[in-house]
């Protein structure tokens, strides 16, 4: 071995380094899972919330909105919409879609029952009470 920069050592460092940092990531994940119950508002997950989350998903709300900042950036952030608008406004809004104003972005009519909408709102309420390290910066999301 005359060369002091070898492919075999580069390979060893790759495998070693990759495994090392993945294990570190697992350790941090382990700690995160332990801490989560204090932050994730999971004590308030009711059957209504669970059903609301399912409605959120099966109507592909994330395709336009963001939730805790993740999703599409086409329509408003909904992680704090419960606080921003309140349940009555949300209900009326969902029912009133689409607005049909020419040239404006349109939200489809999803034909949800009153109970469905209540569950969706329960989900949004639950989401708004997750400890997000004070994000978003203000009520506008």
């Amino acid at each position, binding site marked *: 071995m005359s*060369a*002091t*920069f*070898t492919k075999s050592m*580069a390979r060893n460092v790759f495998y070693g380094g990759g495994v090392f940092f993945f*294990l*570190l990531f697992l*350790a941090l994940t382990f700690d995160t899972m332990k801490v989560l119950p204090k932050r994730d508002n999971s004590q308030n997950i009711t059957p209504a919330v669970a059903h609301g989350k399912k409605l959120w998903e099966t109507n592909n709300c994330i395709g336009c909105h963001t939730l805790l900042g993740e999703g599409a950036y086409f329509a408003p952030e909904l992680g704090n919409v419960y606080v921003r608008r309140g349940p009555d406004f949300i209900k009326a809004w969902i029912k009133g879609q689409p607005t049909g104003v020419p040239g404006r972005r349109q939200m489809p009519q999803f034909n949800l029952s009153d109970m469905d909408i209540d569950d969706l709102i329960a989900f949004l309420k639950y989401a708004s009470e997750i400890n997000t390290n004070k994000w978003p910066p203000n009520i506008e999301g």
Partner: protein
Amino acid sequence: MEAQSPFTTLIEISNYQSTTGKKNLPGDFALWIFIFAEMLVFGVLFVAYAFTRAYHVELFNESQLTLSRTSGAINTLVLITSSYFVVNGVSAIKQGLSKQCGYWLIGAFLLGGIFIIIKILEFHAKYAADISMSTNAFYMFYLSLTFFHFMHVLMGMIILAFIIFKVLNDGYSAKDYVGVETGASFWHMVDFLWIILFPLVYIIR
């Protein structure tokens, strides 16, 4: 192109080494790139610690008192001694003394084990006191830094174990000892980081 980017410099160093055979860094250059990256991460963490501390001096001073300086100091001695063992191991293999090299490295490995045990006791004490990374900024840094370093010690021990195994089976010689030097470089880095970490986190107020 790229008159003198850091990376071009790296390539030049490596070319210099492999073409001239002269060495300005012991061991394999591939690991040195890794070491540079690690030092960078630790460096940033140390600076981040210092800055955060400047904003929360009282909190840091108060929480720092709960650390066991004694175990930190013992561990410092343990690691410095282990580095000394590793140095002796490297010079043994340069003279072709595989057995001696193996024994020195086994010594270093065992010292690493002692470090691990002491560190686990420290972690356990904090865990028992219900202290975690989420407790406050000081503990966030203390646990992050020491755990990250702890994993490096484990990694270093695994590397030493491989080298010990190989050297005792006459896998290295007076002509071919780059592998030993490479492992030694990693171990010295681990030691070096602790020598900064210990005063920074345990002592400086």
